[in-house]
């Protein structure tokens, strides 16, 4: 089924059960998995997905169809996930800039990064990484998770987050390097 066709869109506008069912079959599980990968609980993921669909159908008349339905749906879901992050103390951002004073005026390291040879032996690494991902500033965290965990295309992430590809590059750079610096601090002392 071509979800981008006029005919299908018309059926959705008319709230035709078969068309809605087709869309749910294609994306409901995907949306749930995406929500879970944003560190939400099962109940929170369900809540985010349900309200995504409701918002989608409430605003369907405003959908200009410049992007694919999937991208539009994911954009709504991402906003719902952000709302849940904001309302939950578990997702409190660490606002300190860990990349400040990392380099000297010539762009070289002030404190030389240490070898991560001990990282792989650490049983804590996965836990530490998860904790530190949760503490990343919201935009960095979302960009990082969409790109690295969900494997979304750059073009789609830019549409979902409404940012330029340069901006996305900076967010990914900051997220990865903040994680790197903080893991080093915790595992190398």
């Amino acid at each position, binding site marked *: 089924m071509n979800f981008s066709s006029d005919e299908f869109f018309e059926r959705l506008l008319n709230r035709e059960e078969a068309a809605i069912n087709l869309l749910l079959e294609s994306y409901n599980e995907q949306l749930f998995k995406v929500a879970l990968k944003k560190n939400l609980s099962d109940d929170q993921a369900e809540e985010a997905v349900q309200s995504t669909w409701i918002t989608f159908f409430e605003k369907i008349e405003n959908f200009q169809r410049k992007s694919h339905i999937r991208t539009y749906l994911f954009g709504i879901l991402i906003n719902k996930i952000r709302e849940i992050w904001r309302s939950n103390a578990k997702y409190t951002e660490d606002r300190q800039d860990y990349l400040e004073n990392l*380099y000297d005026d010539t*762009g070289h390291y002030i404190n030389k990064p240490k070898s991560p040879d001990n990282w792989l032996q650490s049983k804590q690494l996965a836990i530490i990484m998860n904790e530190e991902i949760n503490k990343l500033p919201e935009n960095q965290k979302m960009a990082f998770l969409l790109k690295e*965990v969900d494997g979304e295309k750059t073009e789609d992430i830019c549409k979902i987050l409404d940012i330029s590809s340069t901006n996305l590059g900076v967010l990914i750079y900051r997220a990865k390097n903040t994680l790197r610096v903080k893991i080093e601090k915790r595992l190398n002392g």
Partner: protein
Amino acid sequence: MKTFFKFLQKLLKSISPKFLQDMMYTCEHVAYLLSQSDQLSLKQKFMLKLHQMICPPCQNVTKQIEIINSKTKLMTEVDLTPEQKLKIKKGHSDLLKKLSK
């Protein structure tokens, strides 16, 4: 062995032509490129390798980022539990009732 590598790095740095030294990336630039490693041009890849050869801190950063990337890849697959599958199925039928005319 380590001393030998340090010597080799210094030698490489001293014999590289001035224009190459001017073109050399800074550690900050290298860190940026490492975080976008799937989108680099051939020139960027070459200059990155050249910098890494002579810069032990960036060699460590490269390894750190590689570990982060590999651990992140493990997070990409979600195997749904039977309870989660049930939740999705129930959500599907609830939504269908709620959304269709």
